[in-house]
């Protein structure tokens, strides 16, 4: 199945578009930056030096320093780590729960009504509010932020998987498998899940983008990653007090954040066009 997804992507020619290529290149560079942060000319991102507070860019501090005299470039490079960990973490949690609830809901009509009502309820709660409330009660940590961002995303993933399962349920090959007495888990895993891969990949890129964005928003609001860990949202949050004096600590991480999210969204649009022609036509 993954082979056919790869070949679909290749056939569609989306990788030939310059925008998609640029987006992929940027994401690759930022991922490399996050991975090799200690070897990229950075210093300890938490190292304080009050004698060099709020300086502009210089040979020693490429992007200047923040209000506590920490090197802004190093903080931004290390901050990429948080974004990627949160992005992949939320994606994994959302996919696991979405596939589980979605397939139970789609396959067992008895459970469907209950699961979908619960999902409707969660969807009605504004995601950011639920997330900041969760972080506030459980204390700021990377894990809490990750779970707080994932919970509001689960209903959409569940609906997506449920929709796919429902639509293939009446396909002749599934009916045939049922008639042959194939066990339920075999039908689900062998005949149904492969159909969810393409829409999951498309939806997954959007979940990734929105997780990176939401982490930055939560950290910006002071209800996210604890301040001792540099994350792009934290850097902006600390920089905002002195924005009128020195805009760098707000604008530089903001630029990285925007370019990262833009690249993921461009990639998502390209994947959607390649893998999900029906959805692509509607948007």
């Amino acid at each position: 199945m993954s082979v056919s997804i790869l070949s679909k992507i290749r056939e569609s020619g989306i990788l030939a578009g310059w925008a998609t290529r640029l987006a992929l290149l940027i994401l690759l560079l930022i991922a490399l930056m996050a991975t090799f942060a200690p070897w990229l000319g950075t210093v300890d991102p938490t190292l304080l030096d009050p004698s060099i507070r709020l300086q502009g860019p210089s040979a020693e501090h490429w992007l200047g320093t923040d209000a506590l005299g920490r090197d802004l470039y190093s903080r931004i490079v290390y901050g990429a780590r948080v974004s990627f960990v949160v992005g992949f973490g939320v994606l994994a949690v959302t996919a696991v729960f979405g596939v589980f609830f979605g397939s139970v809901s789609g396959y067992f009509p008895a459970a469907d009504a209950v699961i979908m009502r619960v999902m409707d309820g969660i969807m009605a709660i504004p995601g950011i509010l639920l997330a900041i409330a969760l972080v506030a009660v459980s204390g700021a940590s990377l894990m809490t932020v990750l779970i707080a961002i994932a919970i509001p995303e689960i209903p959409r993933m569940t609906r997506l998987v449920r929709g796919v399962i429902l639509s293939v349920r009446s396909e002749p090959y599934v009916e045939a498998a049922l008639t042959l007495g194939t066990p339920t888990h075999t039908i689900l895993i062998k005949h149904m899940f492969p159909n969810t891969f393409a829409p999951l990949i498309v939806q997954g890129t959007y979940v990734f983008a929105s997780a990176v964005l939401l982490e930055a928003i939560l950290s910006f609001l002071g209800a996210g990653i604890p301040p001792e860990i540099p994350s792009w949202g934290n850097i902006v949050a600390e920089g905002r007090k002195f924005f009128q004096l020195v805009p760098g600590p707000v604008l530089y991480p903001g630029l990285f954040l925007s370019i990262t999210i833009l690249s993921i969204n461009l990639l998502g649009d390209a994947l959607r066009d390649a893998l999900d022609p029906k959805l692509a036509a509607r948007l």
Partner: protein
Amino acid sequence: MIGMIARRLIATIPVLLVVAIVIFAVLRLTPGDPATLVAGDAATPEQIEAIRRAMGLDQPVIVQFGRWVGDMLRGDFGISLISGKPVSELIASRMGATVSLTIVTLLFTLLVSLPVGVLSAWYQGKALDRAVMAGSVVGFSVPVFIVAYLLILVFSIELRWLPVQGYKPLSAGLWEHLRHLILPAISLSTVYIALITRIVRTSVIDTLGEDYIRTARAKGVPEWSVLSRHALQNAAVPILTIIGISITMLIGGVVVTESVFNIPGLGRLVLDSVLSRDFTVIQTLIVLFSLAYILINLLIDISYTLVDPRIRS
């Protein structure tokens, strides 16, 4: 029609119940004792115990939940743990700023995205359309607080046209009021303009292929009239749907925007009460925002029948 509304209203009850359960569970069952958090680090065990009793936390969970829901149904949202004022009073005092900000944002969003979306559909595949589509991806990707600080940098710090932050109520004069809302509303609307322009474009492109459009053109109806009256009107349902769905995003955006521009609205109240762990205020606000989302979407569902007579049957 009335039967449909009644059915839809009844269908919101289980959703609201789930909302209440989720919020209650999040605030009560997560690790971290609200009473300890409220009491602070210096509190003695006796003080914590007293707070726990005052908050009703010594009762069984089911009793706590039932009491909370019952109080809310009677319109009693409790007392703020921090300021000691009734929650309903706090919310009423913050409502005005948020309502103003939301109205200005929605008006600005529609004012930009309807014409731009229609033009983009009309020039489908041409340079203008491609620029609009590219702009919409960018608008969708730049976080609202970054847009806000860029606007502040240009219009408040460099050009000095508009205030950096703050809020003036309507009683201070209409212009004073609006002047303080311009930058917040533009920041907040960026995402919606991106989203709604896209939907307007797609919906109009869809309807432009319909027979009645060809008939209208053949009759000699002027092109602007074909676009605005025939195409756009028939594209109303998907546009309304996306406005309804994006209300939750709008609420999240309000929290961020009010924080950046220091506007004393409900979004600020959410953040302040979360940071000070004022649980009675947080739970009420989340319930009210979810209720607003559900009711707005219900209204939109009902309005479908007004804009599109085909749905009425």
